[in-house]
């Protein structure tokens, strides 16, 4: 066997170019599969990681109109928007699955913010309560947070996240206490906050991805919800974010919170009671809905898994084509070595010996192709990761399976040529010119 492997390498080396071209199909197929699997696995692990692995695991419960996120300024719902009070928050906090709750409002201004000559357009504003920063996992980087005093006095104070600070004060360091103009009004910057971990560039779901790359390009501006009406003439709805006791509780915490909020607006609205999270369309009626990160992550993982399955099918075609190439070259090799086979048989080689020799050669050829393919695939995965900014996770199992699978391809497609060689009549083979 070892002798056969040694001879196979000798043969492959003797026909370097031919062997390489024969292996190419296998190399491309395996490289594609390894690259796909590594990229998909990386993405999938990142999704899971973000969900389970960070302390900033929160569930947002936002107001929807029908199937769509509620848009401010919509007259049909304008009067019914619930105003939050502390007893509502306490009710949510009483839930077993919830450890913290905060409310917030979102809005964006095209006119944006201006500091000196530097104007930043299309900025995102968040109106926050006293718990928002802690629930969302923000920490103070510079300056301070809002105080009870700031709220009571309706101070025109503003807090920025670091993206917003970098954009607005490009280069300038000492900007705490500086004045920023928003909607022709002056606001004083009192602090800069930052989300813990590498939270912000990571992506929990497609919405976040979208948010991060499009809406949040200029960062976030925080004000107290007490002064929110000064910035936005029309009402923006209150949304809620809750911190679940554990990752497993995320779904329940979100649903129960939505139930409480929907009961609340249901009573306010005198509308029919709904149980919050069913997917039945309620026309234009308003409804709180929890985003279900676990579900979304699963769905996202499934999407990537099924995409990768399709891609792997396509790559498999390359492997089959590669296999046929191997079969072809093995047939050529058998013909070329007819006399050698005849001689070996005349010297007493049994069929099995010849069969093993050619099968080994085919298997060595494709395994080698597989190994080169694995190397190329890993390289490719890192290139893709570099270009597309996706993470890579090399799967040891995928590497082993790929190499074994290439070997199997060699044995399967090498079988017919090898049998042909083994069955050669010794005298016909010896006389072959």
């Amino acid at each position: 066997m070892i002798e056969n492997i040694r001879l196979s390498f000798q043969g492959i080396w003797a026909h370097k170019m031919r062997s390489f071209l024969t292996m190419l199909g296998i190399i491309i197929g395996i490289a594609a599969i390894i690259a796909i699997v590594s990229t998909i696995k990386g993405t999938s692990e990142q999704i899971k990681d973000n969900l389970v692995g960070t302390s900033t695991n929160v569930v947002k419960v936002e107001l929807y109109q029908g199937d769509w996120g509620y848009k401010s300024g919509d007259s049909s719902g304008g009067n019914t928007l619930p105003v939050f009070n502390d007893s509502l928050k306490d009710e949510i906090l009483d839930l077993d699955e919830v450890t913290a709750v905060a409310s917030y409002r979102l809005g964006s201004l095209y006119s944006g913010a201006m500091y000196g000559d530097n104007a930043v357009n299309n900025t995102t504003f968040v109106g926050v309560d006293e718990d928002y920063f802690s629930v969302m996992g923000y920490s103070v980087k510079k300056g301070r947070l809002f105080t009870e005093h700031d709220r009571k006095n309706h101070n025109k104070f503003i807090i920025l996240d670091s993206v917003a600070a970098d954009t607005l004060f490009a280069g300038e360091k000492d900007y705490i206490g500086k004045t920023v103009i928003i909607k022709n009004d002056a606001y004083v910057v009192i602090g800069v906050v930052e989300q813990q971990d590498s939270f912000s560039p990571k992506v929990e779901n497609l919405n976040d991805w979208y948010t991060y790359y499009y809406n949040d390009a200029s960062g976030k501006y925080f004000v107290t919800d007490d002064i929110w009406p000064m910035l936005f003439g029309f009402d923006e709805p209150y949304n809620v974010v809750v911190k679940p006791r554990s990752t497993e509780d995320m779904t329940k915490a979100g649903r129960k919170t939505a139930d409480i909020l929907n009961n609340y607006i249901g009573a306010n609205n005198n509308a029919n009671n709904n149980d919050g999270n069913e997917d039945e369309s309620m026309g234009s009626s308003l409804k709180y809905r929890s985003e279900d990160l676990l579900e979304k992550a699963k769905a996202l993982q499934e999407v990537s898994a099924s995409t990768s399955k399709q891609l792997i099918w396509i790559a498999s075609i390359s492997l089959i084509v590669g296999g046929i190439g191997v079969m072809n070259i093995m047939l050529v090799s058998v013909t070329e070595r007819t006399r050698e086979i005849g001689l070996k048989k005349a010297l007493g080689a049994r069929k099995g010996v010849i069969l093993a020799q050619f099968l080994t050669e085919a298997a060595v050829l494709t395994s080698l192709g597989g190994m080169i393919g694995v190397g190329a695939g890993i390289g490719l995965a890192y290139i893709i990761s570099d270009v597309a900014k996706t993470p890579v996770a090399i799967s040891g199992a995928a590497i082993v399976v790929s190499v074994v699978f290439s070997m199997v391809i060699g044995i399967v497609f090498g079988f017919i040529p090898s049998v042909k060689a083994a069955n050669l009549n010794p005298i016909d083979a010896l006389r072959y010119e």
Partner: protein
Amino acid sequence: MLLELKNIYKNYIQGNMDVPVLKNINLSIEEGEYVAIMGPSGSGKSTLMNIIGCIDKPTAGTYFLDGQEINTLKDRELSFVRNKQIGFVFQTFNLMPRQTALDNVGLPLQYAKVPKKERKRMCLEALDLVGLSDRVSFKPTQLSGGQKQRVAIARAMVNQPKILLADEPTGALDSKSGIQVMDLFRELHERGTTIIMITHSDEIASYADRMVKIIDGELIMGDEEASGQEVQDE
């Protein structure tokens, strides 16, 4: 009797014609004999030798080798016979071009599953026998014709077969190398090996004890064994 051919026929199908190449061959050879087969080109000498060497099958007739009826053997058993009982030497040497003299000689031992260490010892011994101890790791391209043929003889003899079959072993050699090969054959014969050799040359044939002639597929005995057997058509 070491080998016995009875009423051997060999036909080749050429187009839709059945071309007879061997016609009712009867030949017996005893252990230790040294037989030369002569005859014009195309008369069927090689065909006969290949049947004796168990790498070709007769169309009809029976062949006993060392008491075994070859026609009835399975492929696996035939391989065993080729490996253990017979050593083949060809006119054109038929060495593996990319392997050293040592590896070439080792092939039959490899098929006999002889352990590697033992294999090497036996190969060195065989190469020593043919006087090539100093060419052990040479490849065929680095050897002269006579040396190549001696490697082939070492390969044929390494498994210590009873019979050495040689199809025009000196045909591709100069006369000096040819005589070296004949000296080697004589030595092997003296050790008890049965030798059957095809040749065109009377001088080479004179090394043998007995000579048989084939003309047009029919055997003509060169000595007292020649008998009045009538040639039968099937």
